[in-house]
């Protein structure tokens, strides 16, 4: 019987099925960070349980740390204690940790793929809703809560009902000047923030397979923003090329064996999907969010729609106006959505030999130490600094307002991140989500704009 890719992975990992009960689903690997793991360690310790296989876990530090140069000095006492506790827990349970200055510290969803841990057909979990990022490799990767992490610690499995599967087929070619970020924001705007609840999305279409791995990660990363449990792309030659020679990747004969398995991970002809969405992107313009959730977003030439007065009040904008031209005080490039080397290259190219607007503060935050090192090799840090922006140390930074990097109340930030919820980047902050290119063009101008500025202003 023909199966879609999610069914294939599910059936291979399903340990036990009983009607009326959730399935017991085996988990291949779990990534952890400081914010959602401490209580999970407590839970297993209280029950005298041990970690089933510490080699199937990897920890990093990302959410709570400062991104200034002297980031070892953590002024927030509770954040400092949280990080210390992660180190202690990892040491105690034998879990490897990508600590500061290990060359591999970074945002959990940047680190996993760049180490070659994320591989096709795996089940991978993390106490973080953007775990779907790893779906770019054809892995079934999803966010879990702290209790579920304790389950994985103790048993290497989770309890879960088999998800429904939604196919999102992108038709047409992605136009110049638009990116995976615009594709996913377009989908979210179309189907809404609860549009894929209960589903895993498979992204299909030539435009998806034309994307680089890093762009695919951006695409899958925001699956949760339309409510999806996970999002994935069937692996292809681009996937295999990316994985080859990475630290945790198989080599030699093992790589050949892996390839045989990975190549089987595609949806069969005539397989069943619970829902199919088709989106034509051949005329897509850069997407920018205007409101207080990622669904409230428009293409750059469009006007803000009527209807959500609470959101408009919060963001201090009016319906029927364009976003283009709205003054900004902050520009942020980074996060698990857009903190990879290709994102930084795009930004640096736009900023090269130019200066950002004097009343804009711009942070460029590499997603990991590897990204930072590569950017420095290419001189991107110098380009960014010469333009008047700050090139900072790796971490989640200004994405979520839980470390030193916050947008002050009442100020407006154009950001490559994933959520524009009320207060997300700091209490009272206003966020506009966009691609790295749109953020860079806006930082130069001092107001929201894109490379299509002249035609949009008319």
């Amino acid at each position, binding site marked *: 019987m023909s199966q879609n890719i999610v069914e294939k992975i599910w059936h291979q990992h399903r340990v036990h099925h009983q009607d009326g009960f959730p399935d017991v689903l085996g988990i291949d690997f779990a990534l952890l960070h400081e914010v959602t793991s401490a209580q999970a360690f407590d839970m297993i310790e209280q029950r005298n349980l041990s970690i089933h296989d510490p080699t199937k876990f990897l920890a990093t530090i990302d959410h709570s740390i400062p991104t200034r140069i002297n980031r070892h000095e953590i002024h927030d006492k509770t954040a400092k204690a949280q990080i210390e506790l992660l180190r202690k827990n990892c040491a105690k349970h034998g879990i490897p940790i990508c600590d500061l200055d290990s060359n591999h510290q970074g945002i959990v969803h940047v680190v996993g793929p760049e180490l070659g841990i994320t591989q096709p057909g795996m089940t991978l979990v993390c106490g973080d809703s953007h775990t779907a990022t790893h779906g770019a490799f054809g892995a079934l990767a999803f966010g879990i809560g702290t209790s579920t992490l304790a389950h994985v610690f103790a048993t290497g499995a989770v309890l879960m009902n088999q998800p429904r599967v939604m196919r999102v087929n992108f038709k047409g070619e992605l136009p110049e000047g638009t990116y995976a970020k615009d594709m996913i924001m377009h989908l979210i705007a179309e189907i809404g923030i609860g549009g894929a609840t209960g589903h895993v999305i498979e992204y299909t279409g030539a435009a998806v397979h034309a994307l680089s791995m890093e762009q695919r990660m951006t695409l899958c990363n925001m699956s949760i923003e339309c409510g999806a449990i996970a999002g994935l792309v069937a692996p292809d030659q681009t996937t295999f090329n990316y994985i080859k020679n990475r630290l945790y990747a198989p080599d030699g004969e093992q790589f050949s064996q892996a390839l045989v398995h990975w190549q089987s991970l595609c949806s069969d002809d005539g397989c069943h999907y619970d829902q199919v969405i088709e989106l034509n992107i051949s005329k897509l313009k850069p997407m920018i969010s205007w409101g207080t959730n990622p669904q409230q977003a428009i293409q750059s030439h469009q006007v803000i729609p009527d209807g959500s007065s609470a959101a408009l009040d919060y963001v201090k904008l009016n319906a029927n106006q364009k976003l283009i031209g709205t003054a900004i005080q902050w520009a942020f490039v980074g996060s698990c959505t857009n903190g990879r080397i290709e994102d930084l290259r795009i930004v640096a190219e736009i900023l090269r030999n130019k200066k950002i607007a004097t009343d804009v503060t711009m942070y460029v935050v590499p997603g990991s130490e590897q990204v930072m090192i590569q950017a420095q090799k290419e001189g991107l840090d110098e380009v960014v600094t010469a333009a008047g922006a700050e090139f900072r140390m790796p971490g989640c930074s200004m994405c979520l307002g839980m470390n030193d990097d916050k947008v002050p109340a009442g100020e407006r930030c154009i950001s490559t991140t994933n959520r524009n*919820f009320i207060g997300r980047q700091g209490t009272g902050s206003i966020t506009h989500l966009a691609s790295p290119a749109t953020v860079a063009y806006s930082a130069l101008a001092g107001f929201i704009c894109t490379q299509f500025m002249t035609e949009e202003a008319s």
Partner: protein
Amino acid sequence: MSIQKQGKITIQGGCVPMMIDDIDTDIIIPAQHLTQTSKSGYGQHAFARLKQGDADFVLNQKRYQNAKVLLAGDNFGCGSSREHAVWAIQELGFEAIIASSFADIFSNNARKNGLVLIALAPDNCQRIAKQATQENLHLAIDLKQATVTATNFKYDFNINPFFQHCITHGYDEIDYLLSHIENIKAHKTAIMNQSLFIQPGHAT
């Protein structure tokens, strides 16, 4: 080894009508409070961004102070995976949430903490909200019968049979998983590990 919790059959109490759609986890508990490493201490910050600056907001009103049931709009709990959102709501004294739909990760987290999520049709949610605004509405939730009852209505809801078993018997989900531990190990050896190609231990 199993920590036996008390089973729960009914939830009885007042109901707070907070009819806002898409209540996200950053609204429930802002990220700046997530540096704590305990499971408590979140209630005081819960919904702070809605409570601040609006004295009339439902969660600021005295009449709802001892309510056990939170009534909300569509897509409750969307956003992050932070279980802190569930802990914060429970710390406010809520034992159940009624809404027309819930986000997936939030639902999973709620189940594991015994917070009961009840999905009702939007019309029924509106009707309960109206009544809870006009009078001191007392709800009785029967977890065995899967019903929500007041003096003038009774609604059935869908309850996952496994969750129903867990909550009514005080049974922890992890015990079910642990009862399958040998199956899990065997399945990993026989099938999963055959197609897992991670080469361990290089990075740190």
